[in-house]
């Protein structure tokens, strides 16, 4: 082996154009390989993701289309002024979301990434490192923005009979707009780290409180602090007035909305070119500001990226102390009568979850939002023109809770086995049966999900003033959902573990996670459907509908049969999924 390498030309520093070309090549190569691999090895996941995106887009499109037609024909509220207000509120909200999401994405992408640590040891300029990560942030936050934002605009174009250039201008307008909050987010991210690196914890807390405050204020303004009844024209008018701040002409969202509305406008006596010329003017305004902000951010990165990185890396790090031990002691007391091995495993999993804010915070946010919706459910009952709807809504609530639970079990319970697998030797050497480990996880997931879910269902039912029998049926179905979903996640997690991945999100987004999500959805729909169908029929007959076809005795028998089928399927699912999990887990080598 010779240490000499032939060097045809000496190394040199690249100029900005050459660097840009090189990093574009890097992005392209990674994207190409990722797509190729995805199509070759994860077709199910890729198809499911594409299908779900399409479903979301089409659903949003038709909701918007119907909504616009309704406003135009029935409510007579489809005025230019109303549309402007709605668009401005919608895109101002998306602008705020894009700002925060891009700031967070860039913080993680630049300051917490191993890749940037590597690039910083190479002669790559700080401007290029920033641009490289900035383009990723624009892509990651921009595709969601286009997915959510475009159905409304396409629907609007159809309703007002917009010209072809309206549709052509939509995408450039949206892309140019997406760069502005991302650029602002980048500047704030860089400056915050540079000047306040040692204060990152207070900054995170203040930012979280600001976001929470904004959301709470919006919800309060729209739903609670109102003079008029919910979902009436007066309530709509009142809400629009309260949120009129979004129409500030300095907001890029106003430029976007104006560009869109100008492109769609076709008034009599107005020359055609005036519409697209105005729209292009707003596009130029958006694009020039987007480029300006990107340039400012890039220049800033050139000056402070290395220094801010250094400040963050060398800031004081507080050692994490172990607080809230009383929670473990409380848990130990509650579980004192359970077998020792199960108790120890449950307490271990409980500790891991409570010390990982990512897990319980997501659970808290999801269930908090559902709780908020349930608290406002009284108005549905008051406004419902048909009493049978109340019963239907209560089951739909159950479905919502179930579907949220399924995302939780897929994201956090399913990967638990894979993550355990990497440290499996610890458990594998313990003098306990391997089944006990899975049983512990199943109990942990079932109890952990049943407690908040059953309380939420109880809240929903009591606000809807449902009879005791229905509440009991709901609680039983909730128990079946929690146990079944936990068994699916634990059983599949043990059967198809991903022992190579170290990130739970990667494990959850793989084939096993996707299968878990699909099976969970099928299970939820079946259990809720089989229990809700006869129950709803019974409620309808009780209200005097369809009584010529069904007698109350028949519907009650059907209700009982439906519940028995749900219980049988639930028990079988738990048994079957745990059985295949046990078998796979017994054979696992370490």
């Amino acid at each position: 082996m010779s240490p000499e390498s032939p060097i045809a030309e000496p190394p040199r520093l690249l100029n900005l154009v050459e660097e840009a070309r090189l990093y574009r090549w890097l992005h392209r190569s990674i994207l190409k390989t990722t797509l190729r691999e995805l199509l070759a090895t994860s077709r199910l996941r890729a198809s499911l993701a594409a299908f779900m995106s399409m479903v979301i887009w089409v659903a949003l499109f038709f909701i918007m289309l119907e909504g616009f037609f309704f406003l135009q024909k029935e409510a007579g509220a489809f005025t230019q002024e109303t549309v402007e207000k709605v668009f401005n509120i919608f895109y101002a909200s998306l602008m705020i979301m894009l700002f925060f999401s891009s700031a967070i994405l860039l913080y993680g992408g630049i300051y917490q990434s191993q890749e940037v640590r590597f690039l910083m040891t190479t002669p790559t300029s700080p401007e290029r490192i920033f641009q490289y990560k900035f383009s990723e942030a624009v892509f990651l936050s921009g595709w969601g923005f286009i997915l959510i934002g475009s159905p409304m605009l396409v629907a609007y174009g159809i309703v007002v009979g917009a010209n072809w250039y309206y549709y052509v201008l939509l995408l450039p307008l949206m892309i140019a707009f997406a760069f502005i909050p991302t650029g602002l987010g980048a500047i704030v991210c860089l400056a915050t780290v540079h000047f306040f690196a040692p204060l990152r914890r207070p900054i995170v807390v203040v930012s979280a409180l600001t976001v929470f405050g904004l959301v709470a204020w919006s919800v309060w303004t729209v739903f609670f602090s109102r003079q008029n009844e919910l979902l009436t024209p007066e309530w709509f008018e009142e809400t629009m007035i309260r949120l009129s701040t979004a129409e500030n002409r300095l907001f890029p969202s106003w430029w976007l909305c104006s560009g869109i509305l100008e492109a769609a406008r076709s008034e009599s006596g107005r020359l055609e070119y005036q519409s697209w010329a105005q729209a292009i003017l707003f596009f130029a305004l958006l694009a020039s500001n987007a480029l300006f902000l990107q340039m400012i951010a890039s220049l800033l990165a050139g000056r402070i990226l290395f220094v801010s990185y250094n400040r963050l890396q060398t800031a004081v790090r507080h050692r994490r102390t172990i607080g809230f031990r009383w929670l473990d002691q409380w848990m130990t007391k509650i579980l004192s009568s359970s077998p020792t091995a199960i108790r120890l495993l449950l307490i271990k999993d409980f500790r891991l979850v409570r010390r990982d804010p990512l897990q319980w915070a997501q659970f808290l946010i999801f269930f908090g939002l559902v709780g908020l919706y349930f608290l406002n459910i009284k108005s549905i009952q008051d406004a419902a023109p048909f009493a049978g709807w109340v019963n239907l809504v209560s089951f739909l609530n159950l479905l919502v809770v179930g579907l949220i639970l399924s995302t939780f079990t897929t994201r956090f319970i399913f990967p638990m086995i894979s993550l355990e697998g990497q440290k499996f030797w610890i458990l594998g050497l313990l003098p306990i049966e391997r089944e006990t480990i899975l049983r512990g996880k199943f109990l942990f997931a079932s109890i952990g999900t049943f407690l908040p879910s059953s309380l939420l269902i109880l809240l929903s039912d009591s606000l809807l003033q449902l009879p005791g029998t229905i509440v009991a049926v709901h609680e039983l179905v909730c128990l079946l959902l929690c146990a079944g979903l936990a068994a699916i996640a634990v059983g599949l997690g043990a059967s198809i573990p991903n022992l190579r991945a170290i990130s739970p999100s990667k494990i959850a987004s793989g084939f096993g996670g996707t299968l878990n999500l699909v099976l969970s959805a099928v299970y939820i729909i079946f259990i809720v459907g089989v229990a809700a169908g006869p129950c709803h029929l019974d409620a309808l007959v009780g209200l005097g509908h369809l009584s010529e076809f069904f007698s109350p005795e028949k519907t009650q028998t059907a209700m009982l049969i439906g519940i028995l089928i749900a219980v049988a399927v639930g028990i079988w699912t738990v048994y079957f999924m745990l059985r295949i999990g046990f078998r796979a887990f017994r054979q696992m080598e370490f």
Partner: protein
Amino acid sequence: MIEYHGVSRSYGDRLAVDHLDLSIPAGELFAFLGPNGAGKTTTMKMAVGLLQPNQGHVRVCGHDVAKEPREAKSKLSYVPDEPHLYDKLTGREFLQFISDMYGMHGTEHADCEIERFGMGKFIDELTETYSHGMKQRLVFASAFLHKPEVLVVDEPMVGLDPQNIRLVKDILRAQAAAGTTVFMSTHALEIAEEIGDRIGIIVGGRIRFLGTLADLKEKCRQQNSTLEEMFLEMTHEEN
């Protein structure tokens, strides 16, 4: 060459490197020893531009790393203890990326390193499928592509099998012989003993010993102790 002049670096109140003066000339393999948390990695990170000193300055081939980072970095290569590779690139694509980054177009440099490190069998596979040893070979190959004047290597032997350890030792020695400044940190005294031209022992951010192996052995002889005993004694005092 690498020069540290009165360099200090702290993390909050904790001083990690304390008034370090060190110069490593061209063609020398400098072995940097010390217990965990002694300041080895912080010292190295300042040479490669990942951290900046609170006081003093670090120069690489005459360029101040904080003031002329690109010029300094173009002269060096850094092999960290946990190197980064792009999972979705093949080994060949990664080498091409690094080669292009230094403005060296064409594939001959990469081909030469592939042969030198015996990577022909796996170079066209995605790096996510590589073992630790294969990854380390690729990282070293990429580090040598632009023929750096300074090579900074943090714990290069961790997790390698005996064959790869031999390979890395030979490469580092050969690089130093060819005129490259090699700055290597290690926990293993025997590795420093075997391949180091000069040894530095850092404890609590301060250099406790700086000299050749012969100097260290002489010190041991005077104190009637072995190298290991001497090392443990030096590092124990501070702890």
